[in-house]
């Protein structure tokens, strides 16, 4: 079993690894690439030096954006704090307690002074510091540390860290799904190895990735996706080993009706090739249309939430890349043009044809077009195969679990996807809004086929625990979304309102003349 032996190679940061940067309570997912500039918490640096170090190492930022592993912890409170006041009766807020000016501090920074040293300077030049209580001094130092200590920790990604990161940085992208709510979903849906799970999400792939982590590469996950392709930026960030992707299947939700009706054609070989091609072209077109629509929507959503800034800042390179992969060539082009990034140049030489070089390059262009068409064909063939594989997994209608977390109205999605579960299997639906789930609940009660229905939400409270200063943290998250969970049972043979009514225990019914009839 090779117990006890910890193989360091498992915990060493390698080039190409997906990692999470941490400073204080702020996280950011990036991929380790040499000579790549990373911006995090208003600072830029290169990750080159991280390669070869162990995960969870804390680095100090040196000038020129170079990371240096922090030396084995300088004794925590090296900033000596001798003497302290007992109360603040004599502390005046005259705005003159700090003798260093803003410019002084700037010059200190420019001199390349370490954060620790700057903090000591601030303390030495604060006339009131000595009169502050011990606790206030502690608080003062903590605050300054947060501002001046330039450290960053590199972590191995996990469901816990990524869920906290997304919730902190881009809640709009994950439908405001708070991490503790995600934890409940994974448990309520009994996600575990060797099961077959259906996932419908528009949470950037975070929910999908979390499900995959819990299954450890055993079993199968079928991602039902809207639009032109599954969004998996969040999955990338988990940095799963390659074999995890063997368990992952995808099925476009736009083919669901056909699948249910049994009219979905997934045969790879079609005699009428011409017809097929035109067919596919049409399909691709509509898919592209759907995609742009979806994109516009999410963008609009983000904008209304005034998160545009963080959005741009947050987008890890990896995300941009996967997005680019999904996008059609044309889209990438226009984007590159707008961005004016290095990609632009390569794109231009690539497709510079539509300028003066047209006549010369015509032949090449023709060839390239052919190659591209060929490539497209291969890709479509692959896509078709994938579709067939996912369809055959679904057709058994014997899935073991269902998780829905999207910006779509959950009710129709739930009703359609429940059909693919075996009896006695759990399902969980997330929604940012309670009302949608009330609708789901009502519909399920009408229709039967489920038990144990529960509509819930969760409160998450953080505590500051310090000697003589223990209390709940002042701010708590107001909304983490709502869950509807339940268990499937064998469908009733249309015998509504059976012997028992275990729903609404009649809340003192009033005599009402129902107008609905």
């Amino acid at each position, binding site marked *: 079993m090779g*117990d*006890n032996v*910890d193989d360091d190679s498992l*915990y060493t940061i390698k080039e190409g690894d997906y990692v999470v940067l941490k400073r204080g309570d702020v996280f950011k997912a990036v991929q380790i690439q040499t000579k790549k500039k990373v911006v995090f918490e208003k600072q830029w640096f290169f990750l080159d030096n991280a390669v070869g170090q*162990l995960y*969870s190492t804390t680095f100090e930022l040196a000038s020129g954006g170079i990371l240096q592993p922090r030396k084995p912890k300088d004794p925590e409170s090296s900033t000596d704090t001798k003497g302290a006041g007992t109360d603040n009766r004599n502390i005046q807020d005259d705005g003159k307690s700090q003798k260093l000016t803003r410019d002084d501090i700037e010059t200190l920074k420019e001199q390349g002074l370490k954060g620790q040293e700057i903090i000591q300077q601030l303390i030495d030049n604060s006339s009131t510091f000595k009169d502050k209580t011990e606790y206030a001094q502690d608080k003062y130092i903590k605050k300054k540390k947060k501002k001046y200590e330039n450290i960053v920790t590199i972590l191995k990604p*996990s*469901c*816990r860290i990524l869920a906290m990161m997304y919730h902190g940085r881009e809640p709009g992208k994950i439908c405001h799904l708070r*991490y*503790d709510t*995600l*934890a409940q979903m*994974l*448990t*309520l849906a*009994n996600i*575990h*190895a*060797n*099961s077959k799970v259906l996932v419908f999400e528009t949470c950037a792939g975070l929910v999908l990735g979390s499900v995959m*982590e*819990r299954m*450890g590469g055993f079993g199968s996950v079928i991602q039902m996706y809207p639009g032109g392709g599954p969004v998996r930026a969040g999955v990338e960030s988990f940095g799963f080993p390659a074999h995890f992707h063997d368990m992952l299947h995808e099925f476009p939700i736009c083919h669901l009706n056909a699948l249910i009706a049994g009219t979905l054609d997934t045969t790879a070989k079609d005699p009428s090739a011409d017809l097929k091609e035109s067919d596919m072209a049409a399909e691709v077109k509509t898919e592209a249309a759907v995609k742009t629509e979806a994109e516009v929507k999410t963008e609009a959503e983000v904008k209304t939430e005034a998160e545009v800034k963080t959005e741009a800042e947050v987008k890890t390179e990896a995300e941009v890349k996967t997005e680019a992969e999904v996008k059609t060539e044309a889209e990438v082009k226009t984007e590159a043009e707008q961005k004016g990034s290095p990609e632009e140049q390569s794109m231009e030489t690539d497709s510079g044809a539509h300028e003066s070089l047209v006549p010369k390059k015509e032949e090449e262009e023709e060839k390239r077009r052919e190659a591209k068409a060929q490539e497209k064909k291969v890709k479509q063939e692959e896509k078709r195969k994938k579709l067939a594989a996912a369809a055959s997994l679904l057709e058994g209608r014997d899935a073991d679990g269902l998780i829905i977390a999207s910006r779509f109205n959950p009710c129709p999605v739930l009703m359609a996807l429940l059909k693919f579960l*075996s*009896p*006695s*299997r*759990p399902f969980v639906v997330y929604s940012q809004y*309670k009302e949608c789930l*009330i609708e789901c609940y*009502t519909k399920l009660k009408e229709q039967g086929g489920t*038990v*144990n229905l*529960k*509509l*819930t*939400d*969760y*409160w*998450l*409270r953080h*505590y500051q*625990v310090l*000697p003589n200063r*223990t209390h709940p943290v002042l701010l708590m998250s107001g909304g983490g979304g*709502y869950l509807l969970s339940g*268990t*499937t*049972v*064998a469908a*009733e043979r249309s015998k509504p309102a*059976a*012997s028992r009514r*275990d729903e609404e225990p009649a*809340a003192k*019914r*009033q005599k*009402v*003349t129902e107008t609905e009839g």
Partner: protein
Amino acid sequence: MSFVEYSDCIQDGDVAIVYLGHESMTPVKVKRGAQTQTRYGVIRHSTDLIGQRYGSKVTCSKGGWVYVLHPTPELWTVNLPHRTQILYTTDIATITMMLELKPGSVVCESGTGSGSLSHAILRTIAPTGHLHTVEFHQQRSEKVLEEFKEHRVDHLVTVRNQDACKDGFGVTGVADAVFLDIPSPWEAVRHAKAAMKKSGGRVCSFSPCIEQVQKTCEAFSDQGFEDINSIEVLLRVHDVRTVYLPLPDFGPDPSAQIQPDSTITPSQNHASIAVKTTIPPRDVQGHTGYLTFATKPRT
């Protein structure tokens, strides 16, 4: 049936959950020839259960019916025989994620108690992980091992009858995560550290009282644990109801008389509107315990 793998049909020796309606369930050990009494009549295992599909409807002798469900750790939590106070799903879910449990994780736990959390851990770490659980109460440790066998998860778990505060977990340098649910967790913190991998890992302590949290945090800090963080997660259940809000009678409306044809005004006395809404249950659990998490750095 197993708590770590679904199966379609009920077999002799399974544990099945009989769903009697509205939050009323009971666990049943399926045995050929055995019978179970419910308020809807008797269930005969040989004919009514064995060979039936999980999730199917079983008609009892009095004509009533029940559903038979496949066991899951969550259903077990609300059905298990209590030998101690137990952890419920809300806390369990949080613990599972914050300890970063997944297939292959090696976990230490103390005390085992009634095995509510243990089943959830086993579900998550199967098929390649292992749980080392420590229970100082001999009878409880024997009982829980018996249950693990019945539930076909005993290959994934080692139960030790010892005191975690004094004797530790019986393993060193193997755990990815440690969970403490004992009255004085601060006494077990150094053992927790010793049980964990050299490369580090996550630890959690569950305590109902803040004084316990205070002491535990100090112990974590003394032992060099990092990212110490105490939280509390509360479950809120919403009962879906249709409520009827009566409309008050404002008396005859003189302005209405201008239109002579509006004689068919609704009977004002009974006018009310129906609203689909949710109400909170009358009593809710306001506190279970504080969860303190920390990370053991590489040593």
